[in-house]
């Protein structure tokens, strides 16, 4: 079965060790997590975790159910394939000389990125977007020499008016057995 990128969104108790519990379930199944982003949610004492992993749908569904059993995980959904707004933020520190500076500024402009720091021989650019956009910008800047890059990992939200706390879980799917 083909592996694909999955976006999991979890609402969890804001307590020590919660992330540890979650991540250890991925580790046990040998998942390599592409990115994980954590921050406060709209509810006090609850955090929102966005995890991006590669895996087959069945594997990811199994780990999702396992995560859902954690006492500190209040809700968890696999929102892959839904209409999403997904964003990531990256800071890129790129080498800049007087000869290249204007070209870099131009690229930043095209991507609607901001210059957040200027040093004698570098520029630091802040860019927000989906992974593809950040990857493209990264490629364009590569030739100038990249000193450092920091990416937050994706956060994502399903489009439309429904908040994640109001979402209901779908009943288990019936699977047809393959018989030998």
């Amino acid at each position: 079965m083909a592996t694909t990128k999955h976006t999991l969104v979890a609402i969890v108790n804001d307590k020590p060790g919660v992330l540890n519990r979650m991540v250890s379930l991925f580790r046990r199944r040998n998942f390599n997590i592409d990115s994980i982003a954590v921050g406060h949610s709209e509810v006090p004492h609850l955090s929102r975790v966005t995890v991006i992993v590669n895996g087959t749908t069945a594997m990811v569904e199994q780990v999702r159910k396992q995560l859902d059993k954690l006492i500190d995980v209040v809700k968890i959904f696999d929102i892959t394939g839904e209409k999403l707004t997904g964003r990531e933020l990256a800071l890129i520190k790129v080498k800049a000389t007087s000869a290249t500076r204007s070209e870099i500024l131009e690229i930043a402009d095209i991507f609607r990125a901001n210059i957040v720091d200027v040093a004698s021989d570098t520029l630091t650019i802040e860019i927000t977007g989906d992974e593809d956009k950040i990857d493209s910008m990264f490629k364009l800047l590569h030739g100038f020499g990249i000193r450092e890059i920091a990416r937050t990992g994706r956060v994502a939200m399903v489009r439309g008016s429904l908040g994640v706390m109001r979402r209901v879980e779908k009943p288990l799917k019936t699977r047809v057995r393959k018989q030998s």
Partner: protein
Amino acid sequence: MFGFPGGALLPFYDTLPQYSQIRHILTRHEQGAAHAADGYARATGKVGVCMATSGPGATNLVTGIANAYLDSVPMIALTGQVARHFIGKDAFQEIDITGITLPITKHSYVAMDAPSLAATFKEAFYIARSGRPGPVLIDLPKDVMTDQAEFVYPEKLDLPGYKVPRQGHPTQLKNAAKLINEAKQPLIVAGRGVIISGASEELKELAEKAQIPVITTLLGIGCFPGGHILNYGMAGMHGTGYANKALENCDLLIAIGMRFDDRITGKVSAFAPKAKIIHIDLDPAEIGKNVPANVPIVGDVGAVLQAMQKLIETNRHIDWIQQLEEWRKQHPLLDIHDSEGLLPQYIIHELYEATQGDAIVVTGVGQHQMWAAQHYTFHEPGSFISSGGLGTMGFGLPAAMGAKVGRPDKAVWLVDGDGSLQMTIQELATLVQDNIAVKMAILNNGFLGMVRQWQDLFYKKNYVATPISCPDFIKVADAYRISGLTVTKREEVSPAIEQAMAHDGPFLINFMIEPEENVYPMVPPGAANIEFIEQPKKEVSSWRRQSIR
């Protein structure tokens, strides 16, 4: 509760005498404490409690916690921890037991302040026993124990992330009922979930109403009466031939409170090849994990079966039952072959006769475990106590101890191997100090028998690291002030058991059994269930004479 003290638990033990309602039993090893709590929980259905001091005490609990986790046993493991200001500094006997046990606990707490202790304990017990039960660890720093706080016991629990499903989905219930009503060759496979849910009565009603034969998993033994005409025994690796044939041929499999462990499925792609599957379990993560279900039902087994009962028509499956009876005759299990030696199957059978099937039987892990499962007939939930998921040698003696403490009214028999017993033999002292009248039947074959059996069948009898010497168990028992006797002949079996039963207090029988007896039937690892091997008609044993005994 079962425990073992140490520096970090001193304040706890200091106050313990003020609570006369708590019985504390000092074990000889923390692993013993964990297994004893486990045995107690399985025998009573209540939460078992074990405790250990920080560092080595806590790590000694690990096997017992893992064992309880894999068999869904409600347990609280309380560990002492170094004082808060030492945590994270590699202080003396500081170990991150919460981190170590993360993957083998249902939940865990580091109790970092005294005011929230009451709520923590209430939550921990609730989580341990509700839903799919499991072990919960509470790590308690020493200075929190000596702190003062007002006792606030919360009325209600605040666990928004904890879901305990109750009733199954109505549509799926209907779908399931339709399949059951239409099936020609239905079969129920029942697991420990039935025992946990207390749903034996509901299971029996369903099986009888629709006339559906019942097979069980190893840990499901006892959930359906052993003598019932619809009981076809245990299936899987050492299951009965007829149970495995039933699996092969059924057109509908109703899996209740079980998780399709590889020991029962055999080769998964060839498992129950003709059957549609209804899977009823409390834990959604078990459904579709190993074997896909045509109808998944998430809910408490008892509640689901009750609801289902109303949708099921009274039915008869005479042809199917006749077919099963035919197989029962063709592949008899209780046939005990001729031998000059003392056969373990015979001993278990005699044990059943003598106790009239009314004992709680606790086992170690190995051949003796399988013989106990096969040849004793269990009528009640909780009467067969064994380590299934983890298969922990050394589980037997301490678990039997815990079972007897929980059910003093019942005869508790340990059926153990000479290898398994030696892993936790120190608990004999606990039996004596706390006067726990466990009766012990050691099936002594001078081998790590189950591993030897695999070497015999799949490694050309290359018996490496399986011949195992043992002390004179009777002398050992005697040193602990426990009575016992050694049995070498068939005719001594029954009198020895009678003597043990009449004896006041613990008693040990050392049965010198046929060293190279194998457990049959057996499904070879990786094979389909239907490829089970049966007892060969005549076994010639050359090893027997050179055996180390």
